[in-house]
């Protein structure tokens, strides 16, 4: 409405001032097409500050209906979805951010990349991180993310290349790449335990397989329960003989415990290595996450 007001009054104005007004009009239209007008963007940032992400999504939808979609609306919808942990939806929004604005583009790639790792799509994550432009201010961050990703995919030669890169350009990410180095050393130095040996050891002495797997507490407990059952069975055998109900009941219980313990030792080795991977995954994910949040907050 105000634009109409301006155009009608502009006719009565002097030539110079109407020209001036025209440029302002052009500028503002251009601004609206590509970016938000200041008020809108300010409001969306305000909504982020008060953690009203659902309201932010609703406002941006409404805004798109009125003024059309833009990189800004996509970016901030992506951010809002990320904050409410709707990772897949967030990635879809970030996908639509175009390369027109380098800063928006890079931000979208970093967030989409991290969220892809979070939902387990490491292939796409790699693409996103490699899409990031090689500007000086974010070169370090890009290397850090790619290094973390290589650690997760197990691509160690590539990982070492990125890390040596980081030592030169990414001194601000020192804590983070040191954490990655720590995980890397853990992975390299890990001695893989064999499920077969664990099972055989538990068959010889109940609980020994768990000791072998580094779980002394579980091992002792297994040994004690098996011993208790065994002693009760032995008591039945010694006092009432082989055919007594007492011996039959307790010896069957003992057998169940004995077999379950062997099985438990075998599975334990596998669970342990899964746990090991999970811990590493969490650590790497955390140290990929923090720098992105700090850079684009």
């Amino acid at each position, binding site marked *: 409405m105000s634009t109409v007001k301006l155009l009608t009054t502009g006719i009565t104005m002097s030539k110079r001032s109407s020209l001036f007004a025209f440029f302002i*009009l052009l500028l503002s239209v251009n601004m609206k097409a590509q970016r938000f007008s200041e008020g809108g963007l300010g409001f969306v940032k305000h909504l982020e500050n008060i953690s009203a992400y659902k309201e932010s999504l609703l406002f941006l939808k*409404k805004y798109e209906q009125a003024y059309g979609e833009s990189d800004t609306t996509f970016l901030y919808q992506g951010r809002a979805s990320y904050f409410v942990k709707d990772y897949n939806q967030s990635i879809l929004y970030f996908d639509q951010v175009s390369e027109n604005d380098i800063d928006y583009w890079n931000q979208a790639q970093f967030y989409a990349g991290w969220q892809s790792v979070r939902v387990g799509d490491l292939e796409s994550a790699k693409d996103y991180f490699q899409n990031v432009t090689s500007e000086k201010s974010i070169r370090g961050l890009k290397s850090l993310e790619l290094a973390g990703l290589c650690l997760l995919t197990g691509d160690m030669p590539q990982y070492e290349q990125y890390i040596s890169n980081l030592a030169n350009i990414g001194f601000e990410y020192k804590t983070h790449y040191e954490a990655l180095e720590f995980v890397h050393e853990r992975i390299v130095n890990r001695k893989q335990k064999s499920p077969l040996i664990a099972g055989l050891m538990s068959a010889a002495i109940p609980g020994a397989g768990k000791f072998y797997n580094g779980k002394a507490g579980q091992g002792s407990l297994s040994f004690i329960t098996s011993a208790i059952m065994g002693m009760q069975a*032995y008591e039945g055998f010694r006092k009432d003989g082989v055919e007594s109900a007492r011996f039959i009941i307790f010896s069957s219980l003992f057998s169940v415990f004995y077999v379950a313990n062997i099985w438990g030792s075998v599975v334990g080795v596998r669970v342990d290595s899964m746990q090991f991977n999970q811990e590493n995954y969490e650590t790497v994910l955390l140290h990929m996450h923090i720098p992105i949040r700090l850079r684009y907050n």
Partner: protein
Amino acid sequence: MRQYFYTCIFLFGCVTTDAQLFEENADSLFKAGEYELAAVRYEMMVFTSEEDEAIAELLLKKSQCYKALGDFMESTKVLERTSSQISSELRLKVRYEKALVYYLNGQFQASYGELLRLKLVGQKLPEAYTHLEVLNLFAQGKWEDAKVLLGSDSFKLNEAEIDDIFAGRIKYKNPNMAYKLSLFLPGVGQAYSGYFFKGIVSATAQSALVGFSAYSLYSGYFWTGGMSGVALFYTFYLGGARYAKSLAIQHNDEIAQLLSKRYLDHIK
């Protein structure tokens, strides 16, 4: 000079266009039941306002949107954003609203706290909020206090009506008491919490285990008696006591709900 004036008008138009995203204003959106949109619309007005007074006014309305949506958690968060530098009249309104929303969100202590603060300022609670106070006392298990309050002058209830509300066995069961009673004698805690049959079952199971242990040990089966008997008994013994405690909590919740329901039926 004139062109600056027009430029100013124009720029103002640019900034405020965002506010014109919504054809209807917030209040009519709220009336139309579009609570989510109304909430956004109110927030837009909060964003452009600078006075604490106006902002508090708007936040109060925004909290109504979330209350209408049944999202009491969000509603409390919105109300907590109001500044304390506002007129006392508005502050009272915010307090009342907080008390109500905290209650609806299940934060009875917080709700009761707001009501007490209102009373401390020497404010006489309006009728709706005296009801809220009673309901809060019910929910917190302070039934004796509630009874005393109902007998006071601000409630136009006579003795018979109060007795009507508190009819039956209305007694607060202390969860820790139930726990200790069950440690003292298995099953008694459950019975104390009002679940007599569960107490009997627990007591029977545990005396059977004691009997089994004693018999085994007496007959010389030391391993069986010690491990299958005593160890199992010990597990049941502690588990039973914890169960008695949770039963007491369950009992109190049920009574609180019963009292609230009777009271609400009564004042209808």
